């Protein structure tokens, strides 16, 4: 199935090193985005200065733990939350200040796949009706028969039997439901698909199936993904480039290989060392970096480097200077005053 041509997608690529995969054509961009939520306990700085670009045809991975702001970043890209400051650009247009009505047209170009496939499907509607919704809302197909046909096409694409279109979500398994969510995201032929923890609620064996499906669809349809997850191994597997978030900021970005082999930021190193490996011998012999304490409150992040309160290599000047996001190798950046050096020290100690 051929993808239709996209118009109006030219954008001056922001200062950034071109990567091996994906053209320089930027599909979506965040510039110094901040999303702050006022609460009774204070202002929660969920996203506090995030800049990123998603290039056409690539998968950009965003990994972080709870409180990192990664999900909010994804929601901001769809304008499902309002940015406090900073800008959101999609398909070359600055959508930061758009009204709800204007945004409805945008919604076709950026689609979302949610974490809990059961919760993201209306339990009272059939699966086919949920998949058809973008087609109806954006008037993409004419008439019930054509719509039905397109729904069946989409079901085929995600590996589901056509007769499932008349079932309700609760009659399907978790993996099937997530395939439906993906089919729905594909229905509008979007420029970008944001996947927010798409495999976290699924069984292990099903996670692998879904990851394979996503990769196949990307190859066949030339899709662009923003893949958000807390599972570092999955993000590394799926992404062409990735970024690690901590407390509302990106602390490191680069290719999965760079991040896996030579992490430059101590948090990334700690994250990597915390991933359990399914090999008892390795587990017995490894020495983990165990972070002390808890993630600080996003209402009052630590001054200077945000990570210094838990960093095993924190030095005195970490409390004074907020590290800039600097390049440590081609295409590899980290926000640490002692990038690289601190990680090496951690591994020795």
């Amino acid at each position, binding site marked *: 199935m051929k993808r239709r041509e996209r118009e109006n997608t030219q954008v001056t690529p922001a200062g950034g090193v071109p990567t091996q995969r994906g053209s320089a054509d930027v599909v979506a961009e965040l510039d110094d985005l901040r999303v702050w939520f006022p609460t009774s306990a204070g202002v929660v700085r969920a996203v506090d200065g995030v800049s990123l670009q998603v290039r056409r045809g690539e998968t950009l991975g965003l990994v972080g733990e709870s409180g990192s702001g990664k999900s909010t970043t994804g929601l901001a890209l769809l304008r499902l939350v309002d940015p406090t400051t900073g800008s959101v650009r999609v398909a070359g247009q600055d959508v930061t200040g758009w009204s709800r009505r204007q945004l409805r047209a945008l919604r076709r170009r950026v*689609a979302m796949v949610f974490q809990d496939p059961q*919760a993201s499907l*209306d*339990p009272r509607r059939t699966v086919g009706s949920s998949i058809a*919704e973008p087609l109806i809302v954006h008037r993409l197909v004419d008439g019930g028969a054509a719509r039905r046909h397109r729904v069946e096409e989409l079901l085929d694409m995600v590996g589901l039997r056509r007769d499932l279109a008349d079932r309700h979500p609760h009659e399907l398994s978790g993996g099937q439901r997530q395939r439906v969510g993906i089919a729905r995201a594909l229905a509008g032929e979007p420029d970008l698909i944001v996947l927010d923890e798409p495999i976290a609620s699924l069984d292990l064996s099903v996670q692998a199936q879904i990851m394979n499906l996503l990769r196949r669809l990307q190859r066949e349809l030339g899709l662009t993904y923003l893949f958000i997850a807390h599972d570092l191994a999955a993000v590394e597997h799926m992404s062409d480039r990735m970024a690690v978030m901590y407390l509302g900021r990106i602390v490191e970005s680069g290719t999965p290989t760079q991040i896996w082999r030579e992490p430059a930021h101590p948090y990334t190193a700690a994250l990597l060392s915390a991933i359990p490996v399914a090999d008892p011998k390795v587990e017995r012999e490894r020495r983990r970096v165990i972070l002390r304490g808890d993630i600080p409150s996003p209402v009052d992040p630590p001054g200077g480097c945000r990570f210094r309160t838990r960093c095993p290599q924190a030095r005195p000047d970490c409390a004074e200077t907020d590290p800039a996001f600097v390049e440590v190798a081609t295409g590899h950046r980290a926000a640490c005053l002692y990038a690289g050096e601190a990680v090496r020290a951690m591994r020795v100690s």
Partner: protein
Amino acid sequence: MSAPTAHRSEGQLRRALSALRHDPLALTGTAVLVLLVVVGVAGPWLAPAGINDVDVDRMLQPPSWAHPFGTDELGRDVLSRVMVAARVSLQVGAVSVGIALLAGVTLGLFAGYYRGWLDNLLMRCMDVLFAFPVLLLAVAIVAVLGPGLLTAMIAIGVVYTPIFARVTRAGVLSVREQVFVRAAVSIGASDLRIMRRHVLPNIAAPLIVQTSLSLAFAILSEAALSFLGLGVQPPAPAWGRMLYDGRGFVTDAWWLGVFPGAAIFLTVLAFNLVGDALRDVLDPRQLTVNEARRSTG
């Protein structure tokens, strides 16, 4: 009223009906309601005698084979009058709850979906209505509009609007937080579409229960209004009016008050039984098979 969870579908309705079949109280209630509807619709034709057949010779006769409910002070057959009055009660009940449903659900839907100043405004208006005792408010409205069938319907409809608004709003507040609503927003569906296709169907359950219970109260309110002479006017029969007329004859001609009273009682009871049974069946805590499976993992 408990808010619905997002784990239900058309299969729920089938299960609801099957559960109702097995509950003896619900069955009784449903039987009475069916009887009520039949009598209400076909009353004038089923009634053995005319409701206005005045026959002074036969006045105040106790129940007999000829007149199973006896005759009243004008010689009219009480059974026939009770049967025809059922129609009035049904009409008032259905129309007034219909008004309350339409108005209340609309208000609750917008208030709950948009929140903010609209929510405040609408809910404070509902609070004002809530503050008045039901009957007092109904009487006031009828006093303004003049007594009669239509005004009784309007009055009761207005009086029961706030409860529907509140139940709807509570359901909307919980459903709008669900991920599938956010998913619909992310697709670009308009607010009206989301309210119509996603929110409303998912709050149907508490609304159904509330409708059933409100029907009971509406009929009771109609009886009260006609007791006070503010409902449908004589000589048209109404249960409440018949109660009023019968109150002077409690010792001498007990059948004048007892039969209409029993009719009111049974009808209200039937609606309550059915409403309670529906509420039990539509309760979100019912386990579906998938949930049972998950709990065995």
